[in-house]
């Protein structure tokens, strides 16, 4: 099975607190630590496990600049055979539809049976997978948390309210967005990354993909993030202050009063 996994380089929220810059129009990007979007690691792991079982190959793709190459290499160190960097000045500032359009360009150039994305990334929009499927006219399922390969089809589970799971049969080629918890993504060490450090990663732009530059990037977008800001805080919590001992004393009083201690 030929599998394409779409991945994104994002600021790592486990490593940084996200703050607004001094102009108040963007997040503070100096010293940000970046990593692969959490959901995407699960998608790549799932692809590798499928190929281990039924054969084929995994390609990881991202839309970004040269710095995005590092996330492709990381996923290749996990076991993805090929990387593909989609990069062009015309792609800059794309909205979700723009990104899906660019990815669709790469899908059309390939011969993939299955395309995976993470369920969402840092902006929480959860949109690119569903848009890509619609552009390609492929069936789609979001929030997938099991995949079983059957005769020319897949049996999948979608995670829904309350942790229940809706089971479906889906035809291929299809697009699935992967939910966290579907597997346990393997650990990648420095040595693994070194091994793939010199593998050639092809780079393709709008003309390689046969894309009209006005359909993507700034020119093609309908949805525009104008700025980042921190909203006026409501009153919020009463913050307990003092030494740890004093804080614990106040907290215990509260817990007693509210029935939190038995």
């Amino acid at each position, binding site marked *: 099975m030929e599998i394409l996994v779409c991945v994104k380089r994002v*600021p790592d*929220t486990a490593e940084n*607190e*996200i*703050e*607004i810059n001094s102009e108040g129009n963007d*997040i503070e990007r100096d010293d940000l630590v970046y990593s692969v979007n959490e959901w995407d690691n699960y998608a790549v792991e799932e692809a590798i496990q499928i190929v281990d079982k039924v054969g084929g190959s995994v390609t990881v793709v991202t839309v970004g600049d040269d710095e995005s190459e590092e996330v492709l290499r990381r996923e290749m160190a996990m076991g993805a055979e090929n990387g593909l960097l989609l990069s062009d000045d015309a792609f800059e500032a794309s909205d979700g*539809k723009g990104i*899906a359009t660019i990815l669709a360009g790469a899908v059309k150039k390939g011969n993939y049976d299955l395309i995976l994305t993470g369920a969402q990334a*840092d*902006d*929480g*929009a*959860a*949109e*690119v997978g*569903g*848009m890509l499927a*619609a552009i390609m006219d492929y*069936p789609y*399922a979001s*929030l997938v948390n099991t995949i079983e390969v059957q005769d020319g089809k897949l049996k999948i*589970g979608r*995670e*829904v*309210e*309350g*942790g*229940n799971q*809706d*089971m*479906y*049969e*889906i*035809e291929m080629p*299809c697009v699935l967005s992967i939910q*966290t*918890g579907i597997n346990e993504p393997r650990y990648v060490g420095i040595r693994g990354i070194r091994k793939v450090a010199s593998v050639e990663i092809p780079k393709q732009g709008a003309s390689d993909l046969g894309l009209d530059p006005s359909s993507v990037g700034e020119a093609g977008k*309908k*949805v*525009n*993030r104008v*700025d980042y*800001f921190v*909203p006026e*805080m409501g009153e*919020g*919590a*009463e*913050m*307990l202050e003092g030494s*740890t001992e004093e804080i*614990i*004393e106040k*907290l215990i009083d509260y*817990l007693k009063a509210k*029935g*939190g*201690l*038995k």
Partner: protein
Amino acid sequence: MADVFAYIEHNQGVADDSALELLTAAKKIFPDAAVTAIVMGSGGDLDTVCNEMAASYNAVWKVDNAAFSFPDAEAARKALLNILPGDCVLLLSHAHLGMDLSPGLSIKMDSAYISDIVDVEGLEGSTLKVIRQEFTGQVSTHVHADISNGAVINVRPGVFQPDESKAGGGEIVDKSGDIGDVSVKRKYLETVQAEAGEVDITKSEVLVSVGRGIEEEDNIEMVFDLAEAMGADVSCSRPIVDAKWLEKARQVGTSGQTVKPKVYLALGISGSFQHLGGLKGNPFVVAVNKNPKAPIFQVADVGIEADILEFVPELTEKIKELG
């Protein structure tokens, strides 16, 4: 002005809470619009929901088809494409169904898709100004969307007050005959119910809930120690379950359990809307987090800025001393 629609989720004859929240959101965008509810389903329950919605919405479009005895986004998308006017605005709830349905629908309708909005600033010409959040609520963004060709808008559940005015009095229009071919390449088989766990946290009065801030599996033990000292049960956020450190039945949130304790102690939990969506009944919330700007402090009653790895054992000690 564009035609305005809201997609109504329902289950066993009962409309989802989002049904009347969408009406509030729609009126915030288009104060004078007549808003039409779209109710898709199959059989007797459907009329109950349609009648309920007719009291609040200006019109109800009913779609009765066996394909919708189960809410299938792939089939619903095809049906909606056939019945909706091209440049309309459709609002849905940003939950499991909306996430499945909306992005692809916006492509097929060639309209803007605006995901997970938390507020509406207004409409200027054909530019819709809304507010979203990124990085699990750590920062907000102003988003401007060109809706001249319509829009599909997913609205975050639980942020808009439900419109209880019942000022609709709308007519129910049967659109079942107009939906066209709804055959799809994805076939629904069954729903597998979540497994019950060793404790039923939905019944717990006091919950000590642990999030990714606990850092390592070995540290979970200190949370159990605290819970034991307090006479509480242990629950958690999703990453703890994803890491297989605790069983799924202990997960609080939209894709986990809905709990209604008296006291909820959130340890190293950032406060994502999916997590808080599982916390009901207005409990007394205490949050301990090392980041003073963590969104959880906006919803907690009492906050403590501390490293849980140091704070939790000390708190446990003190509670044990009380005897």
